[in-house]
């Protein structure tokens, strides 16, 4: 065996030793194909939350339009297909309203609040709280008692959260608005970026106005 072959064998062995280990490491703890709560960008998450929320509440999405129109149907602002409630609505009509509220909007709000509080981004937290309060109020308006305190904890194995009392939830929604106003009034260096805030282009005064409007609407509810 000449020296050239020996060198080749040594190099090849080194190659195997160095490069084969990576493929046997199967304990990758994060899904490389999607953003995780730890790795998400706070501005983009805010962006996604607002987008989710607007689609959810504005019936832009075909899936939940039917569920959201239900309110207008029942009071005959829209045509209700069938004279009786039982005929007009079918099991599953409200599934998407429910799904997009929790696994669309509220889970994003939860992740956004966690991320923002790690970096003291109080304005982000404030906006998240306004959206959370509005979503929660709407859910109570539709369904009465809904899960909140035990909700959104699927990662700890809580798959069937118990519902909270609806009056209690209205109070929580009011509290969230109060906290949101306080957070939005705090003077901080990094505020909302005008790009990631799709509603008011980073104008916290307008967010505070919205929070106060929602408060008055809740109080008169």
């Amino acid at each position, binding site marked *: 065996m000449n020296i050239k072959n020996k060198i080749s064998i040594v190099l090849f062995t080194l190659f195997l030793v160095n490069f084969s280990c990576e493929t046997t490491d*199967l*304990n*990758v*703890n*994060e*899904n*490389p194909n*999607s*953003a*995780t*709560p730890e790795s*998400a960008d706070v501005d*983009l*998450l805010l962006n*996604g*939350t607002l*987008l*989710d929320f607007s*689609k959810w509440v504005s019936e832009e*999405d075909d899936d939940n339009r039917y569920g959201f129109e239900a309110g207008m149907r029942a009071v005959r602002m829209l045509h209700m297909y*069938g*004279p*009786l409630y*039982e*005929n007009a609505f*079918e*099991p*599953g009509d409200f*599934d998407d309203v*429910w*799904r*997009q*509220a*929790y*696994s*669309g*909007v*509220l*889970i*994003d709000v*939860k*992740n956004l609040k966690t991320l923002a509080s790690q970096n003291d981004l109080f304005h982000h937290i404030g906006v998240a709280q306004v959206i959370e309060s509005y979503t929660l109020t709407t859910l109570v308006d539709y369904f009465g008692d*809904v*899960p909140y305190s035990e*909700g*959104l*904890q*699927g*990662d700890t194995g*809580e*798959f*069937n*959260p118990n519902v909270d009392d609806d009056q209690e939830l209205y109070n929580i929604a009011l509290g969230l608005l109060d906290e949101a106003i306080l957070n939005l009034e705090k003077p901080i260096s990094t505020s909302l970026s005008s790009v990631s805030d799709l509603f008011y282009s980073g104008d916290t005064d307008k967010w505070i106005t919205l929070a106060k409007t929602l408060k008055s609407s809740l109080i008169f509810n």
Partner: protein
Amino acid sequence: MGVQARAWLDSNGNPVNVNGSNVNINDSGINRLGNPDLTPELVSELELGLEFKLLNNKLGFEASVYKKDAKDQILDQRLDPSAGYTVTAINAGNLLTKGIEIGVNAIPYENDNFRWDFILNFDAYESTVTKLPVDGALFLSGPFSNLGNFAIEGQPFNTMMGQVIQRDDNGNPIVGTDGLYLLQDEIGVIGDPNPDWNSTFINNISYKGFKLSMQWDYTHGGDMYSATANTLLIRGLAGETAFDRSIPLIAPGVFANGNPNNIQISANDHYWENLGNTEFKVYDATSIRLREISLSYSFPEEILNKTPFGNLTISAIGNNLWFKAVNFPDSINFDPSVNSEGVGNSRGFDLLTGPTAKRYGISLRA
């Protein structure tokens, strides 16, 4: 979250998602929860076969019975979105499949010029969900979350569920104060899409260079949700409903208190509102079909000797020329072999899918 990302394959070789995230990078609101406790599927199969040939190979017979037990099947379970996640992969219990296959091939008559042979196949199987770790029904696939194929313990795999009307103890529909049927709050079983048995009959008759082949298929049983048939019926566009739709009638049924229904509605309302309910869209999908017929002619060698070809056959072929779903309304001529869900495990749903095509062809083979 400590969820491990691993590459998984189920027993059919399809990749399985074991990891996930609850961050919505789009607006789908669909969040997959990783399941680090997932274990591999295990399939064990027992098969007994029998084969013999008689009368100088003029009669052949094959039969096999099998039992396939799939344990820890990996399926997606839907979660209550209020948990923050909508779906996770679980080891969803056991599936037991029992089946039988029988094949007969025979040459009833053969001489120098003429030959008739046929093949007759029969197969039947039954898949039952024998264990399911979740309460109630597990959504498997299908068009909507309230209309699709489900796994229910003790029931056939892919059982169809959808909206069902309220009925009293004797099975009479319950009507509301408007004379129309009332829906139940929860979805219920509407059918079993798996056929009881299938059969295929292939015939070949040849005389000198001519050969006539045909294949007949028969499917017995199995349910089909057909929006096509129902849409034509409830709108009065089918031959069966070509009557005056403004005549009054009283829908068969009872009130919630047990008194017989006495609310008059129009025939149009009865068809549109009552018979338009999901459970009335399900038909028995028994069907017979002429799958293929072909007539071919092979030129004899004496002629081909003068040409460069060693073999020359010309044939006319027709595919799917005739079918009849016997338990569908006659005027609709519906083909239950359509599937709106495309490729996948879902079965038994037609949501106004285009019909199957007939195909004619001529081929020349040298």
